[in-house]
């Protein structure tokens, strides 16, 4: 009830104030009347009445404070005062808000990214802490690796464990959706019927598929649309139930629509539809009948489980490992794996980990780089804070007289401090709002760096990110506002009142100097980081790949269930090759079986005089046309390339990579040597040439991998595609696609993409580091320079009198310039020294992320230092010129 009355009072506060005034006036006039009745003169009565009433303003205030909490009132007053004073200095306000907005924006964007990658459970998942992604390990040739993806393995684990209340098979994959020209590759959620029970997401329309519809060998061809796809592609029509939809090579029927926001486990790349894993199985792989009953067929699925209540993660892991051992036992029983495998040597091991894959044991390096960048963004924010603290400090010093007057008038120090902190907070909140707006842009840039396939996180509409930004803004506001507030405590009231702005001010520069040095040091840290990444990226790019990525286009064939016999496929491949050469701008074209970094093809090799070729390393092959080496720009070092005459009926030939030649025939000329493929008694394949080495596994390290080529005409034809070299690949790509599409039978189709994208993906972690560090480093440097400028300029304005004296005593303008620039340089050099020390100390953390680059690279440190010094000089030149132009007469008179 009190609170209701309080609120009512607060809302009608103006009326209440008037009423109270009337009431007091009435009281006074009654006293007056009383006195006049007793014979006082009206004047004397009025004065006496006033005296009796005492301080009416005070009693009005006291009466008011019964209703309104005093601090709320004070806060409102202070806020109004702050807003007024900020509006009086728009330049200052803009500088502070702008600086902080940049810092806060970068942090909000990083938060949005890191939160999404590492902390946010998929939407609508019930009790995310009990749901786990399962990782299955086995050891082969001494190396432990994650191996999963078989449907049979999933059913084994689901059957033979007792720790879990739910288990589901999941996979998301881009599959062709639609028919004809409208065909597009869209992400599809491939899940078991049990998957939906993990979520609190009842179908918005129709239903989900049932376990009965999700049984091998072939599940029902039914699909559930996501809300977004339903709205975008079907206009939210309710009669979509029963509609046909072509996904992959199968015609599905829509049976339901998922509720809004339900995107399975893939919020970063929401699927268009969910289909039963057993409906996906048959379209995958060549041996369609055994996909679910053999361990040989991995269809790429992962297993998701929910722990029963009371079962610990350790117990669940042990249970799962036991089940995995049993599964491998079963596998060894029913299959004949090539190799001397035993359960003891395989050492099967299962891990139950977070549902978020980036928190699991197979996390990519992006989570690490993202965390690094969050740290960097935080440094930028620190620099921004130091800057703003400096600006606020300078402003407080300018306002010393005003503050002293307020203190003299009886403002308590607590009140004064709270007002200064409030000023900081208000500025920071303004900056926070601007920062969130700019973060929307920044985060889409971040997104392009980290998760190129994703939809950008919605910073503005995401309550968690907004809350984070506002929270940080308030903290920053308090932190920056408290710096000038601390200074007040040091002042003596009388000196401040007596002194002008001139005396005693300059000595407070020590704290500001320290803030500047810190800014400089942090800038150096970031500049060094940027330099190291830029050099790493350059080092990576300078490694010869053995082929040209830029002019080459990759043509992928997507057969969508169309099956051709060898002869028809060979003729299709020939037609595609001829057609691409007919496209204007195409220089060379070649068939291929594998794309670098994306797939491997290999077979056993037998060479006379070598016991086991396999022991030397991994030998991978590509089946190519005669024009391949010209297409890729791979040089033939010895012997010859392939010729049209190397056909199906002529003798088998091969071209080996230079390292392979060295590994197999260290002393002999490899040309003319005999290699038997697949079996020790196979006919000789003659080496006719040696090609330059290529990178197909890693841009940085290819040791242990060897590569060789066979003529496409001498290997089983494949559905992979072509490499096409063009002078202007961007322009040629669409022409090429439409020309080749004309040759494709049935529902099959081609896609064309630049090979440089494939290579670019390999360099991404360095590229991300280089770009993000450079951007944030430049931002930090700009901020530090701005901070330096404002402090130096302020110092010059304060020292006008002193500088005037110096000039009157004979200092030349050049001396004054040297004085001012020298001060700025001193700050820069101190910052540089400190920053360099910190960078050297932090070096070993960043070293694993670099490539052929020492974290102590002197070139990088020198460049960073020069940049900082240059920035310091630039920042002080303008104030220095202003100082040199001081007219001693005016300056001294003004003092």
């Amino acid at each position, binding site marked *: 009830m009190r609170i209701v009355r309080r609120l009512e009072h607060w809302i009608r506060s103006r009326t209440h104030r008037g009423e109270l005034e009337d009431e007091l006036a009435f009281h006074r006039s009654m006293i007056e009347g009383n006195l006049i009745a007793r014979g006082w003169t009206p004047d004397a009565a009025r004065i006496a009445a006033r005296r009796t009433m005492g301080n009416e303003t005070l009693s009005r205030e006291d*009466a008011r404070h019964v209703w309104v909490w005093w601090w709320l009132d004070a806060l409102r007053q202070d806020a109004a005062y702050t807003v007024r004073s900020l509006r009086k200095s728009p330049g200052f306000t803009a500088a502070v808000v702008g600086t902080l907005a940049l810092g806060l924006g970068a942090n909000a964007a990083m938060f949005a990214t890191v939160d999404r990658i590492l902390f946010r459970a998929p939407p609508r998942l019930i009790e995310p802490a009990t749901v786990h992604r399962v990782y299955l390990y086995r050891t082969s040739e001494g190396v432990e690796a994650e191996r999963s993806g078989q449907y049979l393995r999933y059913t084994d684990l689901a059957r033979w464990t007792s720790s879990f209340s739910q288990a589901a098979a999941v996979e998301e994959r881009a599959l062709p959706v639609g028919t004809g020209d409208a065909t597009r590759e869209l992400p599809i959620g491939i899940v078991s019927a049990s998957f939906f029970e993990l979520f609190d997401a009842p179908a918005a329309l129709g239903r989900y598929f049932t376990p009965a519809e999700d049984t091998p060998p072939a599940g029902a061809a039914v699909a559930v649309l996501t809300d977004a796809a339903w709205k975008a592609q079907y206009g939210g029509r309710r009669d979509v139930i029963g509609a046909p939809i072509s996904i992959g090579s199968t015609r599905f029927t829509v049976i339901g629509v998922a509720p809004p926001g339900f995107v399975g486990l893939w919020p970063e790349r929401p699927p268009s539809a969910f289909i039963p894993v057993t409906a996906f199985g048959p379209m995958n792989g060549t041996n369609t009948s055994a996909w679910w009953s053999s361990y040989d067929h991995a269809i790429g699925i992962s297993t998701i489980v929910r722990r029963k209540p009371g079962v610990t993660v350790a117990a669940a892991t042990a249970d799962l490992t036991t089940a995995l051992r049993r599964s491998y036992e079963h596998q060894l029983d029913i299959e004949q794996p090539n190799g001397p495998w035993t359960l003891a040597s395989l050492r099967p091991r299962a891990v139950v980990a977070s549902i978020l894959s980036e928190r699991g044991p197979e996390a990519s390096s992006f989570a690490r780089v993202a965390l690094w960048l969050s740290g960097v963004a935080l440094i930028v924010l620190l620099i921004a804070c130091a800057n703003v603290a400096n600006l606020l400090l300078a402003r407080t010093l300018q306002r010393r007289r005003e503050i002293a007057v307020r203190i003299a008038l009886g403002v308590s120090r607590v009140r004064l401090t709270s007002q200064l902190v409030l000023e900081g907070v208000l500025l920071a909140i303004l900056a926070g709002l601007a920062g969130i707006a700019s973060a929307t842009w920044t985060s889409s840039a971040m997104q392009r760096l980290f998760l190129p396939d994703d939809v950008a996180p919605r910073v503005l509409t995401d309550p968690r990110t907004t809350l984070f930004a506002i929270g940080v803004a308030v903290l920053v506001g308090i932190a920056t506002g408290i710096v000038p507030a601390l200074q007040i405590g040091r002042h003596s009231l009388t000196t401040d009142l007596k002194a002008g702005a001139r005396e005693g001010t300059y000595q407070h520069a020590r704290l500001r100097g320290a803030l500047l040095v810190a800014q400089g040091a942090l800038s150096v840290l970031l500049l060094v980081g940027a330099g190291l990444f830029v050099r790493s990226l350059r080092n990576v790019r300078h490694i010869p790949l053995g082929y040209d990525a830029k002019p080459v286009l990759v043509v992928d064939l997507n057969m969508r269930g169309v099956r051709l016999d060898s002869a028809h496929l060979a003729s299709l491949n020939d037609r595609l090759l001829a057609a691409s050469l007919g496209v204007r701008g195409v220089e060379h074209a070649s068939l291929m079986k594998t794309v670098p970094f994306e797939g491997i093809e290999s077979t056993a090799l037998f060479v006379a005089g070598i016991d086991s070729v396999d022991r030397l390393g991994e030998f991978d092959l590509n089946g190519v046309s005669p024009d391949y080496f010209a297409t890729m720009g791979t040089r033939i070092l010895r012997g010859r390339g392939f010729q049209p005459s190397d056909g199906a009926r002529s003798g088998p030939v091969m071209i080996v990579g230079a390292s392979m030649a060295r590994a197999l025939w260290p002393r002999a000329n490899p040309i003319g040597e005999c290699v038997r493929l697949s079996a020790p008694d196979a006919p000789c394949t003659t080496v006719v040439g040696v090609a330059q080495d290529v990178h197909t596994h890693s841009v940085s390290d290819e040791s242990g991998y060897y590569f060789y080529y066979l003529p496409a005409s001498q290997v089983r034809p494949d559905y992979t595609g072509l490499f096409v070299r063009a002078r202007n690949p961007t322009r040629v790509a669409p022409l090429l696609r439409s020309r080749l599409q004309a040759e494709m039978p049935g529902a099959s189709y081609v896609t064309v993409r630049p090979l440089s994208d494939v290579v670019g993906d390999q360099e991404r972690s360095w590229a991300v580091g280089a770009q993000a560090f450079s951007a944030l480093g430049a931002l930090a440097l700009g901020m530090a320079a701005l901070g330096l400028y404002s402090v130096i300029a302020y110092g010059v304005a304060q020292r006008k009198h002193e500088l005037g004296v110096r000039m009157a005593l004979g200092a030349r303008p050049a001396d004054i310039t040297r004085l001012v620039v020298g001060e700025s340089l001193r700050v820069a050099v101190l910052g540089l020294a400190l920053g360099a020390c910190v960078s050297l100390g932090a070096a070993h953390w960043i070293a694993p992320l670099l490539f052929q680059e020492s974290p102590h690279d002197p070139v990088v440190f020198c460049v960073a230092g020069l940049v900082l010094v240059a920035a310091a000089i630039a920042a002080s030149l303008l104030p220095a010129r202003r100082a040199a132009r001081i007219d001693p007469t005016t300056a001294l008179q003004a003092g």
Partner: protein
Amino acid sequence: MPTAAELLPGTLDLIVLRTLVRGPMHGYGIAQRVKEISKDVLQVGESSLYPALQRLLLDGYVTAEWGASENNRRARFYTLTAAGRRQLASEREEFERVVGAIHAVLRFA
């Protein structure tokens, strides 16, 4: 004329509430009444009377209404509420208990 005594802390609300038992009264009336009854011993300062009235309003012990004063001027009249009566009873009891205790100490300690 003896100087007016300071009110014991915390007794102002009690006195105001008690004064209002006789019926609605404006601020000036309350002050006058206290002065008369206590034969000028107790004086309710204007600067504390109005905050006290606001406090009582906030707590819901009194309500306020504008009306005409005895000399036909607009004045705000305060009326005791049921909650105010209950509060008066309990505060009075408490006050008498404390005063009794003080008396006892003064007499026998």
